[in-house]
């Protein structure tokens, strides 16, 4: 592979601190100008199960999940075994484990180089309360060439609320670990510029939403979306906004609609089961033309499914889950940094077009943390001065753009009653065909005719083969394209950010000259594939590569499958 990656997995029991170890390692790496991704994996237990810190250090900020690992640190092998599906080793991999351990046959079968250290003994030599995870941090830090002082300081910050002895032990173990040279010559990727951000996709989405003007959030916890809401709670308090914990998702979406009706940009975040509960009222936002943004952080489905793992299987419901003809916006951020941009854009579009926007993030980008260059922001065009109202105020006035003036309570003389019943321009309920058809057309045309600009997708490369994807698959698909290029099949990658309304003309232009299109996505039934076939009228042959979660999409597998599709 041409890219310089270093993939490290640290596995252990739930309480063993492997996640802290991974976080501190990545933070210290960030301070040196490094780039990298941390994915956290847990078992179903809330506490005391298995956990893994899955690190990928790379200088190109293309954060695919690693599938093959260069280095595995197993604090014990029992907990490692729960991740065997995900953590692949090979003959060029290194394994670091306790001296006393006997390695499982499956691991030995991969023929890695094994390094063994007396973990527990070393840790307790460093400090009476010494813990192995900090020792490992020191060892790995040295491998990456990180300054010991930086790791110690970051650990001290993280452990600020712990007793002094605990912190001392951490320092001693980090220093002890860092003092042990490791006979391991793994190539360390070069570092990039400093001045980056260290954030999860969920935090990035929250930041994007607040920057775009969200000042009201209604919240009902659900994995893996709760941490968006938790992060925003703090932010809103500083901004003088409000967060309201709702009794359920039905309340959450309606509270957001209520706040938005009051003129306060409003938001909620959820995952599949919660989105399903919200659809009736998202339809109300569409029909009453009340702006609202819903971030849906996808997890494994259907039903309760696999709550802690990622999948892209809520595309169907996001696009088509509303009853009646209910056109609305659906967007998807392409990576962690793009969560800032796309969520911000969604909020602005929802406000401007007076409709509901669903943002499809997922557990992979939502709950992974990465070091990213300063994320791009959506800069709204300076708003055209509001057209002065002619005659009496008509809330649902038919205009050339389909967008009517939206008053808010407090505005003098613009009183109206918002309604989810079909209505005439004035908002008065009407069952007449003429009113119905006009308002249906208005709500559809205001989206269809809007100029969304160039951000509807990110287009990379220019090969005669088009790989089409949305949201978080983008990184894996771009990496697959690199592999294909190396193998003589250059491909262009079109990563859709705006899924509805689909920019069919731009999309067709983007695939122009391609002999084949392959739609890649992380679900079982090829939801994007079906949607694009239904809407885009590609002249080319269109193929589907759809692979359900929970294991992340693998570039190598995509590249292979695509090769077979185009050379049958």
């Amino acid at each position, binding site marked *: 592979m041409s890219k310089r990656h270093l993939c490290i997995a640290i596995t252990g029991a739930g309480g063993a601190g492997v996640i802290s170890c991974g976080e501190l390692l990545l933070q210290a790496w960030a301070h040196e100008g490094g780039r990298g991704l941390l994915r956290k994996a847990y078992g179903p237990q809330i506490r005391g199960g298995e956990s893994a810190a899955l690190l990928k250090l790379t200088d190109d900020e293309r954060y695919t999940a690693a599938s093959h690992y260069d280095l595995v640190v197993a604090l014990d092998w029992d907990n490692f075994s729960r991740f065997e599906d995900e953590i692949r080793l090979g003959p060029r991999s290194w394994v670091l484990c306790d001296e006393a351990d006997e390695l499982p046959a499956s691991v030995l079968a991969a023929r890695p180089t094994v390094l063994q250290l007396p973990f527990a003994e070393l840790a307790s030599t460093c400090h009476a309360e010494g813990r192995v995870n900090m020792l490992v941090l020191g060892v790995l830090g040295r491998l990456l060439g990180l300054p010991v002082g930086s790791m110690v300081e970051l650990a001290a910050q993280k452990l600020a609320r712990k007793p002094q002895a605990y912190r001392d032990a951490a320092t001693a173990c980090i220093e002890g670990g860092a003092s042990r040279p490791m006979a391991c010559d793994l190539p360390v990727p070069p570092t990039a510029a400093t001045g980056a951000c260290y954030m999860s996709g969920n935090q990035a989405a929250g930041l994007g939403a607040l920057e775009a003007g969200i000042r009201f959030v209604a919240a009902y916890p659900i994995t893996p979306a709760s941490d968006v809401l938790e992060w925003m709670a703090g932010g809103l308090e500083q901004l003088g906004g409000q967060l309201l914990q709702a009794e359920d998702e039905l309340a959450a979406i309606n509270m957001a609609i*209520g*706040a938005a009706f009051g003129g306060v940009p409003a938001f909620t975040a959820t995952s599949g089961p919660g989105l399903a509960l919200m659809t009736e*009222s998202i339809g109300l936002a569409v029909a009453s033309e009340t702006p609202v943004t819903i971030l849906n952080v996808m997890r494994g489905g259907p039903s309760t499914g696999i709550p802690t793992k990622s999948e892209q299987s809520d595309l169907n419901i996001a696009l088509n889950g509303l009853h009646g003809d209910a056109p609305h916006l659906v967007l998807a951020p392409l990576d962690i940094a793009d969560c800032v941009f796309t969520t911000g854009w969604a909020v602005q579009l929802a406000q401007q077009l007076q409709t509901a926007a669903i943002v499809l993030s997922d557990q992979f980008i939502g709950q992974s943390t990465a070091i990213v260059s300063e994320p791009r922001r959506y800069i709204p065009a300076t708003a055209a001065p509001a057209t002065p109202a002619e005659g009496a105020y008509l809330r649902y006035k038919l205009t050339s753009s389909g967008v009517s003036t939206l008053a808010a309570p407090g505005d003098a003389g613009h009183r109206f009653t918002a309604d989810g019943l079909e209505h005439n321009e004035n908002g008065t309920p009407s069952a007449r065909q003429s009113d119905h058809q006009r308002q249906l057309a208005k709500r559809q045309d205001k989206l269809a005719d809007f100029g969304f600009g160039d951000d509807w997708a990110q287009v990379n490369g220019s090969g005669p083969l088009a790989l089409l994807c949305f949201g978080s698959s983008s990184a894996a698909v771009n990496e697959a394209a690199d592999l294909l290029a190396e193998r003589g099949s250059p491909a262009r990658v079109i990563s859709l950010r705006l899924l509805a309304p689909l920019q069919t003309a731009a999309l067709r232009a983007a695939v122009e000259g391609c002999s084949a299109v392959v739609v890649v996505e992380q679900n079982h039934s090829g939801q994007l594939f079906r949607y694009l076939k239904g809407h885009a009228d590609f002249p080319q042959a269109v193929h589907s590569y759809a692979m359900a979660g929970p294991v992340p999409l693998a570039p190598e597998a995509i590249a292979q499958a695509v090769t077979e599709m185009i050379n049958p």
Partner: protein
Amino acid sequence: MTEAIKLKAKDYKSEVKPIWCPGCGHFSVLNAITKAMAGLGINKDNTVLVSGIGCSSRLPAYVDSYGFHGVHGRGLAIAQGLKVARPDLTVLALGGDGDGFSIGGNHFIHACRRNVNMTYIAMDNEVYGMTKGQASPTTPMDWDHSKLTPHGPGVRPFKPAALALASGAPWIARGYSGNPNQMAKLIAEAVAHPGFSFLHVMSQCITFCPEQTDWKAIVTEHEGPALANADEAAKVFLHEDGFQTGLLYCEPRPSWPPVSDKPVDGNALAGLAASFRV
């Protein structure tokens, strides 16, 4: 003040013609609301009526204020979001017994508990009027007029005041569509109460429950001041026939959200973004 001239009740009515059956109790609630608004001299532009779906829930369009006719059962959620986001507004939520106690039951008990400073008017006719007369959670056990429950629902009706009390509502009153003047007074008091106020209105459905014209004879007026003690109120609410009108219970407690005295930090957004920089 844009409205210097004192407005009358009829000035608070919109030009939309109600779809209600002649003789429906909901007309009387509409009258009481506009009367209360006139009495309070309320600013139309700063008032919002929010509802769900049902005959009763059609009311907002008939009042010349801002309004939101939402979906079935969710009016209280919309209203709470609105009031929390815009504490400067006067917010009234309203709807029927089906809307509020059946599909909307969860929002009802949680609104009572949450105690946001707003008013909720439940227009209770012990039936689903709009869908043509099925039993609601307040329908008598043996009411056998619906084909869906041909022998009656067979289930004990809710006592909405008792439920509100147990859920934490600090202000509970009852009105009757036959007495719009009293109702107007109660609405004005409800709006003035600094917290969640629950006004339960017995509002007859002349079409599906013509027998409700008998209510006239059994309605009584609560004597003396409102109870200020939950125990005593519980005793009344668990046993009463549901036809005692007036302000029945009032035990104020701080409403939510608490008013923040922290000044908003003008640089907060920049600070949030900066907090991610390494």
